[in-house]
């Protein structure tokens, strides 16, 4: 069964550094998402992306965050200058976008900012 894949599984970085989290969505899906889950808290929506542009973003998704679909298969989340509070699991998801097309999630990247 097709799945969403994310790399790396764990990323450790120092505060102030830039990180790029990578995702390969399911190949025929049209909508792409990033969610995050801080340890012990709910899964939270960050951003949705369709037709090469952001369709919606949350208050969390400030100027430090950006997303890109650099080619036909990858979808990336960049954090320009990481803060300690950015430490979390980051989940990529994709969906067909038609009626009755739920989101399918990857296994996440654990980001640790020291």
């Amino acid at each position, binding site marked *: 069964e097709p799945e969403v894949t994310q790399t790396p599984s764990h990323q450790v970085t120092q505060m102030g550094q830039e990180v790029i989290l990578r995702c390969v969505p399911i190949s025929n899906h049209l*909508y792409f*998402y990033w969610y995050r889950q801080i340890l012990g808290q*709910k*899964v939270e929506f960050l951003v*949705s992306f369709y037709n090469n542009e952001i369709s919606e973003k949350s208050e969390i998704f400030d100027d430090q965050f950006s997303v890109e679909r650099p080619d036909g298969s990858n979808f990336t989340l960049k954090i320009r200058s990481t803060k300690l509070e950015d430490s979390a699991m980051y989940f990529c998801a994709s*969906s067909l*976008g038609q009626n*009755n097309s*739920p989101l399918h*999630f990857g296994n996440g990247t654990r980001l640790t900012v020291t």
Partner: protein
Amino acid sequence: QKEVEQDPGPLSVPEGAIVSLNCTYSNSAFQYFMWYRQYSRKGPELLMYTYSSGNKEDGRFTAQVDKSSKYISLFIRDSQPSDSATYLCAMSGARWQGAQKLVFGQGTRLTINP
């Protein structure tokens, strides 16, 4: 009032028992309701997806949505130790350009004891 509320548990039941998990919500605009299962260090895995009110059954799993009470449930029959995981409810409102912004519950940690 929180937008989506879910008892975090933990919930521990013997193998073979019927498990009942539920969420309440406050936003009457929610139309799509999902249950995800999350194993440790993995991403959310879609279990059930329903639109509006009613019941949906898939094998040992039954999802119920009562929009009048703003209450959703997941029932697991003949529970197995492999069902031990965290169960997340998630919901969203009308789509905009097909994208779905999911709002998650806290997740209920379930353990099935052999």
